[in-house]
């Protein structure tokens, strides 16, 4: 697959795509899902985030998608402090991200084609603008012959591939993926990893949360370990 960036990545303007300083999340001080997390993801970096269930991986990704705000600490995205960003400012940041959710979050009433096209449609693209990109992406994840099917007709692994196609179709500056290979076989897992790596080589910052430590090691990426809401290894 040929992946071309939509625009030159502004790495000269913004050196860190993500920066968390002393971030905690949770409404009870004694039961925080995240505690005192300091983390920097430089532009164009590739990180794996590993840790046992309940370690706080998904919570951290939730903060990065701006679905929640940190209870304490500060969060910078693309060089801007977004710790308490007003709601109206969020779409501009989210349009620079591609997110693979653990529960896929596909729209059941739309076809596979329209699900993958969603980020491009939301930025004002017409069908003519994005049809070729969407079809190419669906071909690449092996669903090119099922463009008109609804998500309900897909298996768990196929849904995951569809969710990944949606996350990367807009060639975002930051990709956040929560267990993106959890429902696919090993071969497809490797293939998806290569997709993330090829996007990373073009300047996209990638953060993958995964249980699969072996895959993380094979990727050659920096591996971050999260346990009990604290970063315990390889933190920046």
């Amino acid at each position, binding site marked *: 697959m040929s992946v071309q960036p939509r625009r030159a990545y502004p790495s000269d303007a913004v050196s860190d795509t993500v920066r968390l300083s002393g971030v905690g999340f949770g409404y009870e001080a004694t039961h925080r899902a995240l505690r005192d997390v300091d983390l920097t993801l430089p532009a164009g970096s590739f990180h794996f985030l590993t840790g046992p269930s309940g370690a706080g991986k998904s919570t951290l990704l939730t903060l990065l*998608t701006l*679905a929640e705000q940190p209870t304490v600490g500060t969060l910078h995205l693309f060089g801007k402090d977004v710790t308490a960003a007003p*709601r*109206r400012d*969020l*779409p501009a940041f*989210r*349009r620079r991200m591609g*997110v693979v*959710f653990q529960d896929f*979050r*596909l*729209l*059941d*009433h*739309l*076809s596979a*084609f*329209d699900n993958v096209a*969603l*980020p491009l*449609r*939301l*930025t004002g693209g017409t*069908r*003519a603008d994005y*049809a*070729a990109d969407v*079809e190419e992406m669906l071909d690449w994840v092996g669903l090119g012959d099922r*463009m008109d099917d609804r998500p309900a007709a897909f298996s768990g692994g196929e849904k995951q591939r569809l969710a990944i196609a*949606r996350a990367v179709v807009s060639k975002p500056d930051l990709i956040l993926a929560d267990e993106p290979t959890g429902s696919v076989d090993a071969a497809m897992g490797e293939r998806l990893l290569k997709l993330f790596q090829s996007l990373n080589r073009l300047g996209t910052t990638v953060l993958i949360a995964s249980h699969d430590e072996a895959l993380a090691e094979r990727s050659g990426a920096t591996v971050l370990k999260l346990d009990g809401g604290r970063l315990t290894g390889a933190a920046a």
Partner: protein
Amino acid sequence: MIGRLFNARPSLLPRDSGGEAWLAGLIAVLCFLACLSAVGAVAADRAAHGWARQLRAEATVQVRPRVGETGAEAAARAAQTLAGVEGVDEAEAMDRATAEALLRPWIGDAVLPDLPIPYLVTVRLDPVAPASAVTLGRTLAEAGLDATVDDHSLWRGEVERSAGLITLLAAAAFLLTAGAAGAAVAYATRAGMAAQAGVISTLSLNGATDGAIAGLFQTRYGLLAAGAGAIGAGVALLLVAGLRFLGGAEGVTAALPLAWSDLLILSPCPLLAATVALVAARFTALARLKRGH
């Protein structure tokens, strides 16, 4: 791919056929009622203005005979005097038989022969430049006639006030109907947003602005209200046309004279319904999204 390019893009909001069906039915009924109140107001206003116009075009003069003059003679002299006044088309003394005919339905035959019936002159005024009651009274006085002029202003005022009140009531009914439709759409929008919370969250996390998400709801409910408004207006049109066809120019009653042109009043109904729904859905959706949905 070529076929896909020409396909209409599906809405990003899933359909909620059950909830939307009741909303469409409700809006159709409200539009039907609003159309009837609008036509009723126009018809009542037309009737009131017709009556006021008739009252304005006539005056009644009561003549009191002088000593040595009969009532009939005095009335005839008054009619003759008034016939030459500018702004008077015709003046005619009412004979006793005509006056008795007017009173008979109210008091019967038994007492009529003994009743002192006033001597009246009916004056038909120029509809364009009618003579005033003051002019008529002065002319009669100058002619040596003892007379009282009634230009029906008391009744005319009552009729015009009634017409104004009916118009006001119709406007209030319209506003209430629009408000009820808006409230129904707002309620449906809230329910729709609650039902589609997952879809809204997905759209938002993929970069949709609150305005774009609100736009989905306003488009959905605006179109629905336009269709429902057309149905409500269509049924009202059939009813009004039927009444006009069966009842002629006076419709069913003289108090509500219908005209074919009244049907034109119904034409903006779908547009108005869509506008009310669009505004209600947009403001409701934006308010919900601002509160974090």
